[in-house]
């Protein structure tokens, strides 16, 4: 018995043949209708109905020549204005920095009111609604409003971007607070801590890296926005861009664009690097 070769064992057992599979059927067409297929179809239909706008002016224009002529005016870029452009870029950064600071200060209490884990439901709903409304208004419209109120100067830029960022930071911070494990704050409450203490030592330390990372992102974003809002008079580099456009000084316009590109690219790399450091250091605990 025991010295029977193992290979012969299966042959001793008769294995029942598997039953013949039932005939194959394709999935019926109605079973393939999902939200994504329906929305794709709707999108394509909308595209077909939108073809009208491709008609342009209807006149026969020499498009290619127009393009070359216009682009030709950009070259060579006139870097003789670098000094004043850098000064204006500095003002842009100043506008963005102060706007971000004010937005951080104002949105923290709003974020507490907008976090489902921290505030009663009706407060959360009304806060979120308010933040949504603020976010709907583009930065350029905020700038128009601010210029109308305080006049065409950098202060208008600060006010405009403060309100604009408020809508975003309020939402981001709320989400950050909600993503934190509530167990710690609850435990601190249980051992006698007050509301403020439970927030400060149980919730805030966990949310802080996220809050700071969002704030840096907002600063970066505001510097980019601040470059544009000058177009309506709210100070910074946009004011210069607008002036060069008015006087058809496209070579200078190009120089300013290149400087903005340089600044934004640098910020992008720097911001990305800093945010990665923050999140890596605090989100993934490394065991020694």
């Amino acid at each position: 018995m025991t010295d029977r070769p193992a290979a012969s064992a299966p042959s001793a057992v008769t294995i029942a043949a598997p039953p013949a599979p039932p005939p194959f059927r394709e999935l019926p067409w109605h079973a393939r209708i999902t939200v994504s297929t329906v929305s794709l179809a709707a999108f394509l239909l909308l595209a077909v109905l939108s073809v009208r706008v491709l008609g342009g002016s209807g006149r026969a224009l020499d498009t290619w020549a127009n393009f070359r002529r216009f682009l030709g005016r950009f070259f060579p870029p006139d870097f003789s204005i670098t000094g004043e452009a850098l000064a204006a870029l500095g003002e842009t950064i100043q506008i963005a920095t102060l706007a971000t600071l004010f937005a951080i200060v104002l949105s923290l209490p709003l974020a507490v009111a907008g976090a489902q884990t921290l505030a009663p439901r009706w407060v959360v709903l009304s806060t979120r609604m308010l933040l949504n409304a603020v976010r709907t208004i583009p930065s350029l419209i905020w700038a128009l409003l601010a210029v109308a109120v305080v006049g065409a100067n950098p202060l208008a830029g600060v006010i405009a971007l403060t309100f604009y960022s408020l809508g975003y930071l309020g939402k981001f911070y709320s989400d950050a607070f909600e993503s934190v494990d509530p167990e710690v704050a609850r435990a601190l409450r249980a051992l006698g801590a007050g509301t403020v203490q439970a927030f400060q030592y149980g919730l805030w330390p966990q949310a802080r890296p996220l809050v700071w990372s969002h704030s840096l992102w907002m600063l970066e974003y505001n510097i980019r926005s601040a470059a544009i809002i000058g177009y309506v008079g709210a100070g910074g580099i946009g004011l210069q861009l607008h002036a060069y456009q008015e006087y058809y000084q496209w070579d200078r316009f190009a120089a300013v664009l290149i400087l903005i590109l340089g600044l934004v690219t640098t910020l992008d790399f720097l911001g990305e690097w800093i945010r990665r450091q923050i999140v890596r250091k605090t989100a993934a605990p490394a065991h020694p």
Partner: protein
Amino acid sequence: MVASASSVHLSLDSLGLQRNGRWLFRGLTWEAPRGRVIAVVGPSGAGKSSLLACLSGQLAPTEGAVRCPLVGGAVPPAAGRARFGVVFQHFALSPNCTLLTNVLCGSLGRHPWWRTLAGFPRADKLRAWALLCDLGLGPLAHRRAGEVSGGEQQRTALLRALFQEPEFILADEPVSQLDTYLTGRVLGLLRQEAREKQRTVFCVLHDPKLVERFADHVLSLDPQNPGGWKVRHLHHD
């Protein structure tokens, strides 16, 4: 020092708890003496953690009541919660705070919020540091709780409860992640707290040898028979 005449510290008055339609324990009546270590034992799911939650008031009992006679008159309601120092089963430490800050958090109930807004008093820091050194956590005092090992977190959670200077210490498996040496240190520390500072310690333990060595009383729960709880007195000293 040995507590001579131990007075009643906590009375369980026909305590019963029902969870998910099942009685975990019923008719639990016992007067827990002050300054003793009480081991809570029983198989998994017997309701040991729930019993501790009932004692600290985190969980309302289905029937009966927990009474703790007050010493020296009325205790303000805010201080009520601070009377119970809980070592949570999953520690509930603040992962981005240092071990030192986590231990200091035990004193939050003693300070008003504006006092701790800019950090803790230096005297508190020195005491917390001494406690950390006592359990071999001195070199890690400034490390974040999220980056130290489970056993190190467990000791920090215990120290936070001790730093609270509570009347009762409720420890849910406080040595589950510790080696033999540290287990002895931690349970010895709890015993010392009970004897020298007259705190009453409820401690969920699994190892019968540890129960024999460190507990004064054993409260055992039986999941098959909710009314079949037993209190056994061990004779030490």
